[in-house]
């Protein structure tokens, strides 16, 4: 009606903005892969050809790379999911004591940035300086350090640990929704226990398990920090690190088009996995509808294994969160890394923290990080809110398309998105964006749009239209309704998404590493990366300790808001 036609303008605005933000970089990525010019700035439609593809896909190194990627991704997903299944089964289906600590502790491991965790493990297991290696050498009188973290095995181990919390959080509801009456129904229908489990329980769990598996494969495939810290020094490449290496090669003139050509296959794999993931998820949702409610699942009695089980769980928590933090804190008080001893304790000093306070680049990086993170989080919240408003609340013709467009970045690995924007910002050189924190902000906003718009969609759907209508008939004008009913109800989601974006924008290193240029434009993740590269280990430890503490506090804040949100939304209908 009249009111809607007036509002169509902003709906078109949102639509075109998202269309541009998603499709322009993708087109540059594709066109760039055919570019025969060396630099993105020289790119023109006349200089196109297959040369990049020929070069990349005739190179035997590419196939070694593919092999590495498969081993790394499959290995870490297998390790991560096995651990997560065990943990989820222990807390949901057994009488293990101390479950509350696990529910609280496992998600906490999400707060530790992958880059810092990898660095912490280098401090423990590097052949040259690793504390564990050195202690073992002394203890067992070995010539060679026993463990080398700079290997595919090290990458699999660490990424496996990193995948546990998300897999755990996805598996817990799955385990919980296994309604025992479904198995009982099979039993009274004449099925023996084994065949009831096989035909009912496993069938019901299968799509969920497969979905978790695909999701974890995707995450491992996209991660840059772990293979970056552990693989690059040893020359072990996977997709994400190879693309980075091509672009940021220090030794020879980079051929940017080759990075794009490589990224295309990487992107294709990611898109295909995302597609299957989305299909699996819709299967899972179909099944959850039919599961029962209001029952207490039977618990498996661990008997004598109860305490070993607890020990296993706490060993995981120790390795995943406590040990990296302790190592960092320890190293941050030393002038150089040494095995713990009385002597080491005596030489403890605050000079690394003093150094940070005086080091100009650290101050710049902190300022840049705060600016970048606040801009990214605010832009993501606003953009995804308006996208959801169109998708959920309007009758705009393109609302389904807009929803899908906003989901597309979900399938694009951060490094690939980085390259895509790298081309865009270099080509539009009339705008001085390339290399600045603005470039990083724009890249991140697009990358987080899929999460943001999903969260906003869910939240908007929860706010029953009648809550606003009740305000209208109570005499509140539209803007008063917005102010007194709609915004207060959306606020927890706004804050939740905002903090989520902050947490992720602070710790992801891949995309900023590609989009920044020059020491004045560094953010913390870049600073840490570069300082680590140059061997400032104690300073990195100091900065990492502070960052971990901050992120831990923010994670606690998210949990608090999570509770608030539940409380606000549960009783509406």
């Amino acid at each position, binding site marked *: *009606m009249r009111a809607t036609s007036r509002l169509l303008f902003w709906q078109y605005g949102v639509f075109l903005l998202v269309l541009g933000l998603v499709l322009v970089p993708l087109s540059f990525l594709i066109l760039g892969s055919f570019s025969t010019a060396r630099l993105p700035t020289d790119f023109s439609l006349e200089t196109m050809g297959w040369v990049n593809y020929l070069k990349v896909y005739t190179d035997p190194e590419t196939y070694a790379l593919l092999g590495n990627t498969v081993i790394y991704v499959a290995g870490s997903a297998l390790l991560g999911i096995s651990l997560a299944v065990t943990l989820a089964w222990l807390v949901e289906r057994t009488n293990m004591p101390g479950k509350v600590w696990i529910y609280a502790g496992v998600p906490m491991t999400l707060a530790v940035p992958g880059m810092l965790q990898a660095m912490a493990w280098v401090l423990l297991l590097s052949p040259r300086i690793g504390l564990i290696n050195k202690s073992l050498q002394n203890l067992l009188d070995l010539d060679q350090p026993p463990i080398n973290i700079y290997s595919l095995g090290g990458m699999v181990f660490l990424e496996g640990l990193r995948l546990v919390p998300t897999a755990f959080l996805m598996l817990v509801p799955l385990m919980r929704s296994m309604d025992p009456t479904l198995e009982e129904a099979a039993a009274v229908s004449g099925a023996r226990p084994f065949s009831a489990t096989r035909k009912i329980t496993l069938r019901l769990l299968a799509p969920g398990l497969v979905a978790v598996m695909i999701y974890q494969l995707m995450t491992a495939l996209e991660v840059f920090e772990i293979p970056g810290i552990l693989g690059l020094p040893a020359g072990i490449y996977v997709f994400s690190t190879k693309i980075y290496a091509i672009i940021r090669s220090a030794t020879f003139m980079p051929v940017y088009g080759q990075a794009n050509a490589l990224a295309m296959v990487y992107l294709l794999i990611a898109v295909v996995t995302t597609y299957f993931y989305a299909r699996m998820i819709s299967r899972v949702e179909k099944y959850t509808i039919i599961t029962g409610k209001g029952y207490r699942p039977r618990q498996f009695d661990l008997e004598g294994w109860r305490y070993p089980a607890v020990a296993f769980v706490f060993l995981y928590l120790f390795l995943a969160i406590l040990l990296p933090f302790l190592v960092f804190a320890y190293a941050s008080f030393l002038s150089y890394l040494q095995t713990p001893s009385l002597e080491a304790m005596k030489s403890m000093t605050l000079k690394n923290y003093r150094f940070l306070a005086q080091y100009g680049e650290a101050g710049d990086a902190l300022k840049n990080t705060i600016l970048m993170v606040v801009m990214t989080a605010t832009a993501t919240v606003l953009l995804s809110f308006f996208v959801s408003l169109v998708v959920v609340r309007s*009758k705009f013709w393109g609302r389904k398309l807009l929803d899908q467009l906003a989901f597309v970045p979900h399938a694009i690995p951060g490094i690939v998105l980085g390259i895509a924007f790298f081309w865009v910002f270099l080509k539009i050189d009339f705008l001085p964006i390339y290399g600045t924190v603005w470039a990083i902000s724009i890249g991140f906003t697009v990358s987080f749009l899929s999460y943001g718009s999903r969260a906003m969609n869910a939240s908007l759907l929860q706010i*029953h239209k*009648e*809550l606003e*209508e*009740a*305000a*209208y*008939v*109570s*005499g*509140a*004008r539209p803007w*008063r309704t917005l102010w*007194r*009913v709609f915004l*207060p*109800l959306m606020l927890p989601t706004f804050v939740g998404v905002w903090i989520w974006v902050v947490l992720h924008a602070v710790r992801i290193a891949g995309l900023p590493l590609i989009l920044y240029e020059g020491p004045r434009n560094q953010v913390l993740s870049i600073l840490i990366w570069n300082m680590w590269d140059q061997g400032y280990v104690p300073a990195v430890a100091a900065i990492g300790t502070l960052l971990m503490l901050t992120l831990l506090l923010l994670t606690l804040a998210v949990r608090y808001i999570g509770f608030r949100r539940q*409380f*606000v*939304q*549960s*009783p*509406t*209908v």
Partner: protein
Amino acid sequence: MIKIRNLHVHYQTDQGSVHAVRGIDLEVQQGQFHTLLGPSGCGKTTTLRSVAGLEIPDQGEIFISDDLVFSTSPEIIVPPYKRDIGMVFQSYAIWPHLNVFENVAFPLREMKPRLSQPEIHKKVTAALTLVQLDGLAGRPAPFLSGGQQQRLALARALVKEPRVLLLDEPLSNLDAKLREETRFELRELVKRLKITTLYVTHDQLEALTMSDVVTVMDQGRMVQSGTPIEIYQTPQERFVANFVGSTNFIEGQVQRTGTGPTQFGEVKTASGHLRCILPDGTTPGTNVVLVVRPEDIAIVSDTSIQQENLLRAKVEAVIFMGDALECQLSVGNQRLRTKLHPSSSLRQGQHVTLHLPRERCRALQRP
């Protein structure tokens, strides 16, 4: 008072346009409790939402008191917040971020000129007392039971003493026992306040027990309007007879029209000739359907007293329902249901004689 003239509403769905309301004419007198009754999708809620201003109709006029709040020519659309109405939603729409007091105070705080703080406090307390929620003012709204939420929604709708009260299936989310109690409370309350009420429900029992006037709707149209007794006892259409209460239908053809003041005619059915009340304008040969309520069918042992409207029937099933005995009978191919006192001693397979009192048999024309 609410007056609706020739109301038409379309709305858009993903499947296309739906003509939800097709020409409603309605008048709710001052202080009257008026119910719109019908199955889901009949347009009753759309009509109510049009009165509230939450739907914009395509055609028609709506008056609240004597103010024209909607009309197509001249074009007038008064927005909901200027209509001076109170409304209770099916979901109650209690704002979860406000406590009980603030939920009720909300309409008062939106009033112009602004009310003073003590005045708001006084009115909110009065409204909460009215619905027996006094003492819960400080409680966060989500911590209320279903029944309390329903009463809170009512207090919020009544607090500024609106000219009309609109209720959209306010009892359908309560459990059966509570619903029964609330029916009487609600009617008693609005009658005491003498507030004009438009009530929407699909539950015929609610409509019959609470209303002054019931309007039965089907497929966007009004089918019949009248007092609960009229609606139940003299349904004008087969739809009304079927939707309100349970009914026996016996098809037949008019044999003789009645003469004189009593107007009893005679209809030929597959089970024999039956005397009944005929609708106006029937002539011999008109196809009709007889409507008889189960509780009006009696089982007679002594056939010498009654000579007309007797049917021989076989007992097919006897169902004990606590306060009654429902008996399913067959007369030839015709199936009939009757309601008896639970002490009756009927058995399956028994043959009985039924009496259908002629003043309880109503014929409706059928196409």
